């Protein structure tokens, strides 16, 4: 017995409206490919370059709780801001972020990361210096690598000391395109 798209959509919308889900997600298309975007009632919780929900459900449950449901409505705000960003009409994101359960060092690094301006780059070493751990460039690299909310928390703006792109969860070509979009390259 197939559940019609209309009935399915009504359930998902109502669940989100009633605030019954821990984290809602949807697949958002973008010029750099499909993104899986997830938000809780606290804010944007995750953006993933691997947009197959099957790969992400457990991860989202670990972040926010077992009531994980695909719900376009839950990510409307984030989707709009991402669209504007990719169209070059937005330089800063206003959507609130759900950074629960992250350790203090990670939070302080992400906090500094969020201050790196649109269209500029910094290095792992400089970020380490700014959080008061000048020798922790490698640890900063690890935080970038595990960044739950790439693009919005702009780890693509962090490069190696020589200016090389070094690495990116979405692939180096994506990092390059984001920097080009922002006019940084």
């Amino acid at each position, binding site marked *: *017995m*197939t*559940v019609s798209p209309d*009935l*399915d959509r*009504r*359930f998902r919308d*109502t*669940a989100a409206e*009633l605030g*019954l*889900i*821990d984290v809602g997600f949807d697949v958002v298309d973008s010029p750099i490919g499909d993104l899986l975007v997830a938000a809780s009632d606290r804010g944007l919780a995750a953006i993933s370059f691997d947009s197959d*929900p099957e790969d992400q*459900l*457990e991860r*989202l*449950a670990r972040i926010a*709780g*077992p*009531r*994980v*449901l*695909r719900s376009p409505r839950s990510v409307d705000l984030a989707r709009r801001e991402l669209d504007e960003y990719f169209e070059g009409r937005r330089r800063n994101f206003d959507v609130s972020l759900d950074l629960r359960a992250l350790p203090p060092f990670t939070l302080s690094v992400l906090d500094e990361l969020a201050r790196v301006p649109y269209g500029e780059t910094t290095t792992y070493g400089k970020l380490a210096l700014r959080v008061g751990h000048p020798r922790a460039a490698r640890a900063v690299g690890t935080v970038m690598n595990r960044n739950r909310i790439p693009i919005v928390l702009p780890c693509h703006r962090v490069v190696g000391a020589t200016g090389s792109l070094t690495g990116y969860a979405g692939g180096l070509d994506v990092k390059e395109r984001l920097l080009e979009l922002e006019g940084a390259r």
Partner: protein
Amino acid sequence: MMQAVAIPPFERFYEEHRSDVLRLLRRRLGADRAEDAFQETFLRALRAYGRLDHGEHLRAWVLTIAQNVALDTLRRTRPTSELVEAAAADAEPAYAGLAELTDGLGPKERAAVVLRYGYDLSYDQIATALGSSPDAARQATSTGVRRIRRRITS
């Protein structure tokens, strides 16, 4: 010690069981009324989902919720005699070993006993399935057990 079965993310649970739930509700209520009941069933499941202790017997759990939503719908719209028939149909042995024992119990008591002793669900989970409070679920279970005991010892 046995590892408890992990509770799957709700999306997976929903995708796995939505067709069966809709089939049951259509059979009980017809296509039109089944749609609202479908939504109500999964909203009830969602409300209780965060309180589940383990991920076992989720199919039985959600089908019991659906049966109770169907009963509630019928109760609002049909005379009592039909309701009793529908309840009897709903109480088809969800757990074969208990079927005979629970014969003759009312639908709520029967569901409570089967869920408690057949599926090992908590009173919280049973309460959600029956649309009642945990206390009422405990009450229905113990009343059911008392009746069974009286019948098999008499």
